[in-house]
Structure formats: structure tokens, C-alpha cells
């Protein structure tokens, strides 16, 4: 039997019961649409986060104090104060880390900042002017502090946009003094408003030389991060190795498993974030896939009804020479067309919904969210729906093919 006619027969059978066919595939439509939305939004979120990491720069090597956490209990036993001035000096030497282009020590924490009667608790970052380059934030008013400010423990700060509104309202903050930890700090700049688009919300931050932050604000002698920027991307792994050996020498560590610091590169961070978001996305998609199974049962149910309704037709076709195989394939194709159609509609709806969601996220949440069409999910969605039709269509089709023609012809 020519496939074209089998298809035509199946399609016209489905057309006869348009609304029933549509209701039947609703489960499949919803299932596939849900998978599409989850995959699309998952991919979008992943791209957003990865984009953030990427914007930090691919040459960045971040040194964290303490052991790399291997589990929840490890966080307690880290050595938060392991990165000292001495380490910074060693890392700064060309003979120790030859491919280091820049080196920035960072200290951070929260402290109350006051201006007159206004009080706000910003995140305080102590660093060098280079930090602004690496995180791509620049003052829109005033200036950044200089390397001389760092050397001279200058009491100067650059504040985030939100810090400005909280403390100063509409007053011009430049050259005004705010009080942090009892010390007067002169505001020399205000960062441009960036929004919640990064790991660090610079709108809520206060920038100051690390020397000032260490001595006058936090009163500590260690660093929370040391960021080394390699001269080229190709030298990143060499730089990581150099940093590790320099610090192990400095801390008298011979066994790398006993490291009291860990080094993270952008590639590692991206991989980790990518893994986490993929796992979450897949988990959610698997939950959505359950509805495909439920939809498949619906298809089976309706196909059984259809077989009963068309008993006479089946008997007639057999009398006219249709073999069991002909009947089986006719009903199977019908089920597969139904579910594949459901899959296609689901893909279309899911794409539309995720496009709408990404539009809303961009427009109202101010995120740099890019719509992504998950081609894999679309192909998988249609493929899995067709497979659902095949699997759940087999039983009704088999029932149809086994009908005895004389019984079937007699059927009223």
C-alpha cells in the first residue's frame, strides 16, 4: 500500500473529528511546550550568567583564601586569612609569576556608611584602580582613586549609584565626606548605574584603596582575593601553576591537597556554572516530560475509541484485501501524526512563550537577556512526541488489525 494514501486516509480520519483530535493532543502540546520553555529559559539564564563571567575577562586568575570547598563542612574549616601582604609581594615579582600583567589585591565586607543623618550599609571593596578595568565599571561623575592614593592610604571613596541616592538624595556628593567606621572619607566619584547585572552589584558598593580598607575600615592584614591577570589567554594555565608554586613555597606547603588557598580561572567558573544550570534545566525538563507520558495514555484511549467506532470500516478494508499489516500501519500512522502534530504545536507555543518571557525579562527586569531557541529541545520534543504516538498507538492498532472481518462487517 502506497504510503501517500495511508497518510491521506489517516489525515482525513483525523479531520473528521477535528475537535476531538485537538483535545487528544493537548497533553502532548502542553508537555512539549513546557519542555521548550524550560530549555529556552534555562539556556537564556545560562548565557546570561556565562556572559557575566566572560565580561570579567578570560585572562583573570582569581586566588581565594582557604581550601577549595569540597563539601558543606569544608566551608567552616577554611583559612580565611591565608593571603597576606608577603604573598602579594612574592606574586608581584616577575621571576615568580613571569606572565602576570596586573595584580590586584582585594578586600571586601560590609560596613555602615553615614552622611549627616542618613545611614546605609554598602559593600565595601578595597582594591586598586585596575579593579575598575577588570569589572568594567567607571565613574560617571568625578574620578577614580589613583595608585598614589593606594600608596598613601588616602581616605577617598567612589560610591555606587544606589549609595549616592540613599545617602545624598539629590545633593551633589563629590567632595562631600561620608563616615565609615568612624573615619571621614571624601567622595571623589560616583559609578554609572549598572543594575543587577553582575555578581557584584556595583550600585550598592563603595570603592576605596585596599590599603585604606585594610587599615582604617576592616582592620585586617590579609586579602579576600588576589586577582592576577595573565598577559595572554594562552598563558593562563602557566600563570595558575606559577601562582600555586609561589604560594606553596611561601606557605611551606608540600602536599597540594593541604593548600590553604585555591585558584579559579574564568574557564573553571564558566564550566561550573554551565554544569549547574544544565543539571537544573534537565531536571525540570524531565519533570515536564512526565506530561508526555500522560498525553500518550490519552492518545491510546482515543485511538481505542476510534478503533471501536470504525470497526465496520476495518472489516470492509479487510474484505477488500487489506492485510493485518495494512490496518496496523494505518492506525499507527494516525497515532504518530496526531502526536507529532501535537509536538509541532507545542514547539510553536513554547517558542512563542519563551520569546515573550525573554522580552518581559529584558524590558521589565532590566536584564541583558537574549532569547534562545533550543533547537535540540525542539527536535527532541517532536521526536519524542512521535515516539509516544508509536508506543501508545501500538496497542490500539494491534487491536484493529486483529479484528475478524466477518465480525467487523456485522458490527452495528
Amino acid at each position, binding site marked *: *500500500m*502506497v504510503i501517500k*494514501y495511508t497518510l491521506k486516509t489517516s489525515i*482525513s480520519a483525523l479531520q*473528521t473529528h477535528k475537535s476531538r483530535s485537538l483535545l487528544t493532543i493537548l497533553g502532548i502540546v502542553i508537555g512539549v511546550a513546557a519542555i521548550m520553555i524550560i530549555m529556552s529559559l534555562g539556556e537564556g539564564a545560562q548565557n546570561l550568567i556565562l556572559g557575566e563571567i566572560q565580561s570579567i575577562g578570560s585572562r583573570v586568575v582569581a586566588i581565594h583564601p582557604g581550601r577549595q570547598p569540597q563539601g558543606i563542612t569544608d566551608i567552616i574549616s577554611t583559612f580565611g586569612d591565608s593571603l597576606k601582604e608577603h604573598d602579594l609581594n612574592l606574586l608581584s615579582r616577575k621571576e615568580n609569576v613571569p606572565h602576570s600583567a596586573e595584580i590586584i589585591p582585594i578586600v571586601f565586607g560590609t560596613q555602615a556608611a553615614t552622611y549627616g543623618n542618613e545611614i546605609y550599609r554598602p559593600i565595601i571593596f578595597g582594591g586598586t584602580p585596575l579593579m575598575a578595568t577588570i569589572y568594567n565599571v567607571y565613574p560617571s561623575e568625578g574620578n577614580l582613586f589613583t595608585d598614589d592614593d593606594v600608596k598613601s592610604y588616602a581616605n577617598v571613596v567612589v560610591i555606587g549609584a544606589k549609595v549616592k541616592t540613599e545617602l545624598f538624595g539629590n545633593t551633589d556628593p563629590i567632595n562631600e565626606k561620608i563616615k565609615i567606621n568612624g573615619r571621614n572619607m571624601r567622595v571623589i566619584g560616583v559609578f554609572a548605574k549598572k543594575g543587577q547585572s553582575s555578581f557584584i552589584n556595583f550600585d550598592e558598593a563603595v570603592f576605596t584603596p585596599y590599603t585604606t580598607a585594610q587599615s582604617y575600615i576592616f582592620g585586617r592584614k590579609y586579602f579576600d582575593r588576589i586577582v592576577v591577570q595573565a598577559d595572554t589567554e594562552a598563558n593562563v594555565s602557566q600563570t595558575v601553576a606559577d601562582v600555586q608554586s609561589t604560594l606553596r613555597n611561601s606557605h611551606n606547603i608540600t602536599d597540594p591537597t593541604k593548600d590553604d588557598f585555591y585558584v579559579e580561572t574564568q574557564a573553571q567558573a564558566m564550566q561550573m556554572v554551565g554544569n549547574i544550570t544544565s543539571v537544573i534545566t534537565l531536571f525540570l525538563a524531565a519533570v515536564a516530560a512526565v506530561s508526555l507520558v500522560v498525553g500518550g495514555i490519552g492518545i491510546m484511549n482515543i485511538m481505542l475509541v476510534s478503533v471501536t467506532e470504525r470497526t*465496520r*470500516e476495518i*472489516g*470492509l*478494508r*479487510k*474484505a*477488500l*484485501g*487489506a*492485510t*493485518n*499489516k*495494512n490496518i496496523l500501519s494505518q492506525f499507527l500512522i494516525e497515532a504518530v501524526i496526531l502526536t507529532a502534530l501535537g509536538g509541532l504545536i507545542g514547539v510553536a507555543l513554547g517558542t512563542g512563550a519563551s520569546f515573550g518571557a525573554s522580552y518581559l525579562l529584558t524590558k521589565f527586569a532590566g536584564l541583558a537577556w537574549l532569547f534562545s531557541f533550543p533547537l535540540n529541545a525542539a527536535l527532541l520534543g517532536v521526536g519524542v512526541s512521535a515516539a509516544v504516538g508509536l508506543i501508545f498507538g501500538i496497542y490500539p492498532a494491534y487491536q484493529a488489525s486483529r479484528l*475478524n*472481518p*466477518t465480525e467487523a*462487517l456485522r458490527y452495528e
Partner: protein
Amino acid sequence: MTPDPLIETKSLSKKYEEGETYTPALNDITFSIHNGEFVSIMGPSGSGKSTLLHILGFLDRQTGGTYKFDGRSLESYADEELAGVRNKKMGFVFQAFNLLPRSTVLENVRLPLLYSDIKESLWDEKAKEAIDAVGLTQRINHEAFKLSGGEKQRVAIARALVNDPQVIFADEPTGNLDSKSGQAVISILEKLNIEKKHTVILITHETETAEHAERIIRIVDGKVESDKPVERRRSGSEFYK
């Protein structure tokens, strides 16, 4: 020497099993039908004539005796082969027409060709020929449910004809028709028998209809009561236009 008969039954019987009791539907049926014959099988309802037609038409199997069609016995066919024989060598016309209501006349008549090994390019031509033979060319693109009863049955006959079968089985073809349409249907069968030499086996309980055939086999209670030629054969040609 007469040629081998097309249809030959010997002591054919059929029993339906219901639990431990057997209900006999056919008992010791023996007759032969040759190529080109027009035979009526008559009997009251419940006499077993439909059961007999189902066996003759390879839609069912006997439980006893032998049945040879075109020289080969029914028992020697596997179930899957039966469909091929029905498709190529047999045509069926049913009391309830059994057309696909939403399909056109052409699509209905083409239906057996879908299951045949005839080339697809010839399908429409063959279907049109068969439709022409029953005089429905002007209705070729009408949907089946829009036709009158008589027209429906003529479409069914065209469908039975399309594969150029050796035998046409007609099971009470006039049962659902008024007498005028019924006559027209019988006339077509008659014409196919006389002009195209198709073997026709007509099942009916009406004597008038049965007498269009050249021979009547009467079945009563599952047995052959009589098997005689028709003395004064009726002709319906005056109804056929």
C-alpha cells in the same frame, strides 16, 4: 470435458462453539459453480446463507469438509494470503453498502487498488472505467454520503469490479433499496455477468430477485434444500439505463 469449477465445496460445515455446545450453522454443503455462472443462494434469515458467503469469500473458514477456489483449497492458504486472494480474485457487495461516507465516489472505488500490486499510475483510470460501467461518471467527485441508496450500491458494485475479479459476491444487495433502485442494481449485476462474463453469486431471500440468476441454490437450516436452474429467468434490462 467441462473445465474445473471455480468454486467447489464438499460436505462443507461450520459450527459455532459457545461454551460446550456447538451451534451448527452449515451442514454438509456440496455444490460447484463454474466460471461465468450467475447463481443465487436463497434462504430465509438464519438459514446460514451469509455464513456460507463468508466462507466462499475467504472471510471465514469452515470447520468441516473442503472448499476449493480456483483449484486450490481454502485450508492451504495462510491467513495473510487470504487478503491477497480477496483483493485480486473476489469482489464484494454488501447489503449496507459499506462505503467510506466522507470519501468521494472515485476514492471509494479506488480503495481495493490501494491494497493491490497494480501500479499507482493506473488506479484512476481503472476506477473511472468501473464507475462508467455502473453509469455513475457524472457523480465521480461526489462524497458518498450525499448519494441515494441506489447510487451507493452502484458505487459498491464499481468498487467490487475495479480489480477485475473472477467472482462477485453480492450479499442481499437490494435489501436496503426500494424496488426500482433494487432492480437497477440487479440489472447491472446481470449485465456484468452476460456482457463481461463475471461470475456472480447473489445472496437473497426474495424469489423475484433470485430469479434473475440462471440457477438457484436454496439453503434451509444450514443444508442445501434444492439446487435447480431457473426455468423462466427474469431480466431487469428494461430498468437499466
